């Protein structure tokens, strides 16, 4: 059917728009819009922001992190913990000031959250225990934050693949993270579109939130079906293959030596 030509413009559309002025009753929704947008923007951005000075093979990076977390969890000796802290400090020395600030910010935030939420049981055992476990937890979190900020998500997947983690796990992780970013981007754009049509405080903000998330659910469902169909159409058979196999260099193994040294000390040293 041929589309009709538009009818003449109605009188209200030809009249100059009168800008209305509303009382600004700031709702919870409007107060938090900026924070939500900032969060979604971060979610929609590809990681990482910090470039490490030495680029190690992904699997070595991952082994290193696991080894460090394990050591910090097991070590009860303050000198060895100090050695591990020095090792991390040495790596941080090479970061530019801006990136170091970013690291410190996210590390402090996660440490405070851990101390408040995860560690209250230690509070009952006296200040010395609390201090010791708080230090151990923040050291663990500092290493994890450093890994998170310096490792692209693709490197994590490559590391897992090289360490022979199950394909299903890697693929689920890959799709989940990519998907999360995509949905974050969709929600961010929806909020921007909503903002351009928000000319007064919304009377029913929670109804709007419901409609937006309902739409997001429908969208994610449709995306999932399309994604699977596209994967099948390109010959997906359940086996997840990384395009570039990663090889370890002797320098990668050498980078593990300080951590291995601490491990040996941990096993052999009985003060």
């Amino acid at each position, binding site marked *: 059917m041929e589309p009709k030509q538009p009818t003449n413009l109605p009188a209200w559309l030809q009249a100059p728009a009168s*800008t209305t002025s509303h009382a600004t009753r700031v709702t919870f929704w409007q107060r938090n819009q900026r924070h939500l947008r900032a969060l979604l923007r971060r979610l929609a951005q590809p990681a990482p922001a910090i470039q490490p000075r030495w680029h190690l093979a992904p699997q070595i990076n991952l082994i290193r992190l696991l080894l460090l977390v394990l050591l910090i969890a097991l070590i009860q000796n303050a000198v060895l913990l100090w050695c591990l802290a020095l090792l991390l400090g040495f790596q941080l020395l090479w970061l530019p000031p801006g990136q170091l600030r970013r690291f410190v910010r996210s590390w402090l935030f996660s440490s405070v959250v851990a101390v408040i939420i995860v560690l209250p049981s230690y509070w009952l055992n006296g200040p010395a225990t609390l201090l010791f476990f708080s230090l151990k937890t923040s050291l663990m979190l500092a290493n994890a934050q450093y890994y998170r900020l310096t490792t692209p998500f693709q490197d994590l997947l490559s590391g897992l693949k090289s360490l022979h983690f199950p394909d299903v796990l890697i693929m689920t992780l890959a799709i989940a993270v990519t998907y999360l970013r995509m949905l974050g981007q969709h929600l961010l754009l*929806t909020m921007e579109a909503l903002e*351009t049509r928000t000319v007064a405080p919304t009377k029913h903000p929670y109804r709007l939130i419901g409609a937006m998330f309902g739409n997001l659910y429908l969208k994610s469902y449709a995306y999932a079906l399309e994604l699977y169909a596209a994967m099948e159409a390109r010959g997906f058979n359940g086996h997840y293959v990384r395009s570039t196999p990663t090889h370890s260099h002797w320098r990668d193994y050498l980078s593990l030596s300080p951590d291995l040294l601490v491990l040996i000390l941990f096993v052999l040293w009985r003060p």
Partner: protein
Amino acid sequence: MALINLVNLCYDYPNTTGLDHLNLTINAGEFVCLMGPNGSGKSTLMKILSGLASPKSGDYQLDGQAITAAYLADAQRRQRLHQKIGVVFQNTDVQLFNTSVAEEIAFGPRQLGLSAAAIEQRVTDCLQLTDCEALRERVPYQLSGGEKKRVALASVLALNPEILLLDEPLNGLTIAAQQQILTLLQRLQSAGKTIIMASHNFQQVQAVGQRFIIFNSLHQISADMTAADLQRQPDRQTQLMTL
């Protein structure tokens, strides 16, 4: 009269440039086409003009009022800006979030505090203007791409904005539907609205555009010319055809 005035405007994305020292004046009632290859900065400019992003440096003045980050931080002033400028996004999927097309169009007028009869009048008029009467009770999510574009335009028109920013509004439409939208836009311009339309398809807009602002891949304006100037430059037209 200068409605929009941009002086040395720069905008950066985390790893790339969005706009590089843009100088531009747009008068009230103009029909301006922003042309250029993908990623040249057309949509970024739209975002800044609509108040969704603040420039890194440079000045943006709308109707003599400087639109700064401090201005945009004030909710009431931002809402006044949104009432003045209507935006149709490139991806209209994100623009429709209500449960029916009629509700979608009524969303803006309802916030303006209009009476029920006035809201109904605006909904009916906008549905007629965009040839969407048959879609009135449909769920926006289930519409086709072209139908979504028309509903998005209707929902923006319902607010009676002074300036219309349209980001690739003709993509995904049939030739007849494109013509219909262009005729509507011309009528809106005759009624005094300022139309700013981004497109990378010169054939779609050459008949209606009065002024063509051409972006290059360096995120700068490489040419700013009237339709009459463009008529005299066949080489430039050929270049635009191949964007």
